């Protein structure tokens, strides 16, 4: 699985996890990893793997959007328990008008986002309603 942005992930190639950082001094979690802790400017930072579950803060269905994504597509903010709000494409939730609800539990999956110059799929994280079956590519 070729990753869209390897800097966001850790773990083995077939089962990557989102990774941020946790500051040893102040405990702030940040994502993606940064040069210093944006809370206290500390430099003692440990990798901090983010949960694969979270809560849907809000969502939208974009009909006129980024040219590399087939429209319409669904976007949401998903709050993971580590205190990070992730912008995420949403998947496996047709019909979205009936399925998606603010505050519902979500789970992470790895899906293709776009292709590189050689035509190979680049994967990133997406979220779907918890327990939903795979219906989208």
């Amino acid at each position, binding site marked *: 699985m070729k990753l869209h942005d390897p800097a966001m992930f850790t773990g083995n190639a077939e089962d990557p996890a989102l990774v941020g950082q946790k500051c040893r001094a102040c405990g702030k979690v940040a994502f993606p990893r940064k040069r210093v802790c944006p809370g206290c400017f500390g430099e003692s930072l440990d990798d901090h793997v983010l949960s694969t579950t979270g809560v849907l803060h*809000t969502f939208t269905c*974009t009909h006129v959007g980024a040219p590399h994504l087939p429209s319409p597509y669904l*976007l949401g903010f998903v709050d993971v328990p580590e205190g990070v709000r992730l912008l995420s494409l949403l998947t496996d939730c047709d019909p979205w008008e009936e399925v998606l609800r603010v505050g519902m539990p979500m789970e992470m999956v790895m899906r293709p986002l776009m292709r590189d110059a050689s035509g190979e799929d680049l994967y990133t994280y997406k979220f779907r309603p918890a327990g939903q079956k795979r219906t989208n590519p």
Partner: protein
Amino acid sequence: MNLRDVVVVGIGETKFGKHTGRSITDIGAEACVKAIKDAGVGHRQVQVATGGYACQWNAPLGQYYALPQIVLREIGITDIPIMRTESGCATGSVAFRDVWYRIATGEYDVGLAFGVEQMNVADSSSILHQISDHIPERDGDLGLTAAGIYGLMAHRMMAQNGVTREQLARVVVKNRRFGSRNPLAQFPDPVTEDEVLNARMISDPLTLYMCCGRGDGAAAAVLMDAATARRYGTGHVRVAANVLTSGSYPDDRDFTTFDADVRAADQAYEMAGLGPEDLDIAEIHDSFAPAEIKHYEDLGFCERGEGGAFLDEGRSDMGGDIVVNTSGGLLSKGHIIGATGISQIGELVKQLRGAAGGRQVEGARVGLQHNSGGYVHTEFCSCAINILTV
């Protein structure tokens, strides 16, 4: 720090719309000439100038070199310090602040601020690419658009505060009605609630008319310290507060409010010694319909969660508590990135002079201007607020 009183002595704007047959230099120069004539000052009296534009929309380089100096050379303003600002959609307001600050601190007595943009030279997909790939979260690659940001906001407002699609449409109806009375607006026709609701979907629940258009244009203002201004022009408008701040980008705040807007408004009211109850008019950043409802709450026009009701009760319409976006707002004028902030100030100046024609708010004496710029993660990068008084 002791700051001097600064007043706006002259304003000038081009029509907002398509100016594809002209250079950006000429568009900028038109607004500057108008502002200088309006101020009744000689162009050689201008001691300092700042020009803002966000982007060179038609070229991969993305920037013009020394555009403000080149614009001002066209109208004979040379031999003075000239700066350029860029702060996304708040670019014009930051140019205005730069000149305000240099005069308020006593460095100069007479200054010119302008903002210009020429966006019709580019297509929409190249504009999307301009916005994305320096953001660590890769928002652009993940499909976030400007309308997407407000689609996210609108769904949270609907779930949290009971805001309706109809209320979003009524923001547009109000602002387009005002815009039909502003000869400089790009979209001169009023629209009905049904037309707005039935227009093409852009990012649910936002239809086309709930999204500002783009375009070409410029706006300029001449500023002076109050003592110098007594020798020039008429209809001076005092800058009672000028505030600029940046986002805090929280992970845990409800996506119906922006911390930067709340902080900037608090600072502006304190600086002016005024509160939202003192405002007669406001020009606020209605780039997308839900933004206006959010701003009512963040700027203290009403209680939190009451933005939809504030609109429905007519409190932001003619005859209401604070008449909002009498220019027609970005929804009628189009959002001409670099020009928008100073254009908003221009509308307040016209209103406070009693010169706003068919959209005049009778007896307007205090106005607030609000301009958001740039976006990353969960918040705007810049928030600029001016409070103007007569």
